[in-house]
């Protein structure tokens, strides 16, 4: 089965504005569209979808989500943190960014937001080259083929943006949304970005998102990603971070289950001194699913990577974790460590883990550890000596298992929101 082949007929009407786009942007779309008919849906034999291919069933029949939805940012219990931290909100309704938000954001110092269709020729050429060089995989091609509403965010050199940028992806009604964002951080800049996927829980809806970050020399990005509500939809997103000399990336993601939950997270340490610190928590229940694929490419020497993912699967849900560290031939003096710990709470749940190391340089220190298993009985005992029941002790430790990671997020308001959400899910009442 080929992926979304019937799109070619539908899309013509949606590509408004593309004719006036710079030639490189038009070329980017043409190339991706030419590829689409030949891109196949993942099968059992597709290594990167080995454990999740079944979850993609039916996706190819989806049409595009309506672009005529009201574009407002959403505030409910799960998004209240946004006010607490006074985030600069960029709402994307069904993949399209609200124009007023662009105007508003551009009033800020150091931030420039433009549509791909409106960028100048040289920027367009850069965007094209970047996509040609890096985009891989079925879903990235799909996103690119219809991403003419994609936006470019540029952060000016040496500017420290105090306000977190909240990219709020709102899904209304059925169909596919294909948000695409390209963030260019010039050297020495600092930025916090939150990606929040919010859905009205319609059946047959899906996101195929794509976010690129180029983090310039000595620049710093703190990146948050979450989907606190919405249980029906499919969410297949790619994040790609390219780090220059001495750049730093810190990421925190909270992945809650979906029909298909998938995050492909690529980090390319392309120049010496770059470092990344990836933290993730994934909790699923009922028949949900989430698949985290992280890929850290140590391309340059003297870079450091740290990764810490914790997963809990309950009921009949499934969690996949595939963590890859690839140390290229020249990447001497690399330090890489990855820890992935998992808990299975029910006899019907499943966890599949694949921590991979691919190493071509000898002077490196690299380690990974993965566990699937039970709570530490010494800890259970300690809590019980203080009068907690067995159930209470286990519940508290189960929540603690993921909170240890959540509490490391620098925006405490966000960590609080995540904590209350997790306490709810893991049915622990304070």
């Amino acid at each position: 089965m080929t992926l979304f082949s019937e799109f070619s007929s539908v899309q013509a009407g949606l590509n408004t504005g593309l004719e006036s786009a710079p030639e490189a942007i038009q070329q980017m779309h043409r190339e991706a569209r030419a590829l689409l008919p030949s891109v196949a849906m993942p099968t059992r034999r597709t290594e990167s979808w080995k454990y999740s291919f079944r979850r993609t069933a039916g996706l190819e029949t989806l049409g595009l989500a309506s672009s005529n939805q009201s574009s407002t940012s959403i505030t409910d219990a799960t998004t209240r943190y946004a006010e607490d931290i006074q985030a600069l909100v960029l709402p994307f309704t069904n993949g399209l960014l609200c124009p007023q938000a662009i105007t508003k954001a551009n009033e800020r110092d150091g931030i420039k937001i433009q549509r791909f269709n409106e960028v100048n020729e040289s920027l367009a050429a850069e965007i094209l080259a970047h996509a040609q060089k890096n985009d891989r995989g079925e879903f990235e091609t799909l996103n690119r083929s219809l991403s003419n509403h994609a936006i470019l965010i540029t952060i000016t050199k040496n500017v420290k943006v105090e306000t977190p940028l909240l990219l709020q992806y709102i899904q209304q009604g059925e169909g596919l949304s294909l948000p695409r964002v390209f963030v260019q951080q010039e050297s020495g800049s600092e930025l916090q970005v939150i990606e929040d996927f919010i859905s009205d829980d319609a059946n047959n809806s899906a996101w195929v998102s794509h976010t690129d970050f180029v983090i310039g020399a000595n620049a710093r990005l703190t990146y948050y990603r979450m989907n606190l509500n919405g249980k029906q939809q499919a969410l297949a997103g790619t994040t790609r971070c390219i780090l220059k000399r001495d750049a730093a990336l810190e990421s925190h993601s909270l992945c809650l289950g979906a029909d298909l939950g998938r995050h492909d997270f690529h980090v390319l340490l392309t120049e010496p001194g770059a470092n990344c610190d990836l933290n993730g928590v994934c909790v699923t229940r009922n028949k949900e699913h989430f698949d985290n694929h992280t890929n850290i490419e140590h391309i340059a020497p003297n870079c450091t990577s740290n990764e810490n993912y914790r997963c809990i699967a309950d009921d009949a849900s499934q969690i996949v974790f595939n963590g890859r560290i690839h140390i290229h031939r020249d990447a001497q003096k690399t330090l890489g460590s990855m820890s992935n710990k998992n808990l299975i709470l029910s006899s019907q749940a499943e966890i599949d883990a694949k921590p991979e190391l691919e190493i071509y340089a000898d002077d490196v220190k690299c380690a990974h550890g993965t566990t699937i298993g039970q709570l530490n009985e010494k800890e259970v005992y300690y809590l019980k000596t203080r009068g907690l029941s067995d159930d209470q002790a286990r519940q508290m430790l189960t929540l603690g298992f993921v909170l240890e990671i959540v509490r490391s997020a620098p925006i405490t308001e966000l960590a609080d929101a995540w904590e209350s959400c997790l306490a709810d899910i893991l049915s622990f009442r304070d």
Partner: protein
Amino acid sequence: MLEIKELKATVEDKQILKGLNLSVKAGEVHAIMGPNGSGKSTLSQVLAGNGAYEVNGGSVDYQGKDLLELSIEERAREGIFLAFQYPVEIPGVSNLQFLRTAMNNIRQHRGENEISAAEFMKLAKEKIKQVNLDASFLKRGVNEGFSGGEKKRNEIMQMLMLEPSLAILDETDSGLDIDALRIVADGVNALRSPDKAVIMVTHYQRLLDYIVPDFVHVLAGGKIIKSGGKELALELEEKGYGWLGIDADDAK
């Protein structure tokens, strides 16, 4: 309050306690001393109900109940508190959350109402100050990243919060500097009252300068071989265990 008769216990099929007798009345402070490997920690763990230790003889009566029949948490709710020699670190579970759950369980068991959040916070801040730890410790994971001395003080803080009837301190003094030792001792002394009892398991006489015991017992080879008043501790300090006919290495 506590009546231990001919208590025998094994760990990993090794017989550690070989018929231990001990009687503790409300209001008393007992010190249990003895060489390494004599069974001091085993006694503490058995009283708390650690499943790794198997009781294979004897009885323990605690306030008219058969203690050995009670689960770990039932013992805790009945007022037994063990201050661990090596408190475990539990990252991700905050001290506050943990203590409040523990406290409410114990209160519920006693037929009391749950403590309100505000009242609890007030109490917690008061007690943490008492053991000279910063209030920020309350928000951190249980013992997470605490130094040895901080862990011990945190144990005492928990004890002060939970107000046990019988506190068992398992080598709480080991590895403490003199200031920390004083803080721990003040905590224990604050707990002393006519309706509460304390068992201190210790290796050194030092702690007993600050918490003066009513009775001192020497534990060796899985039995209590000598009991006396506080002067016994001084004698031990002076003469070692040799004069009691114990070879310290032998006891291991």
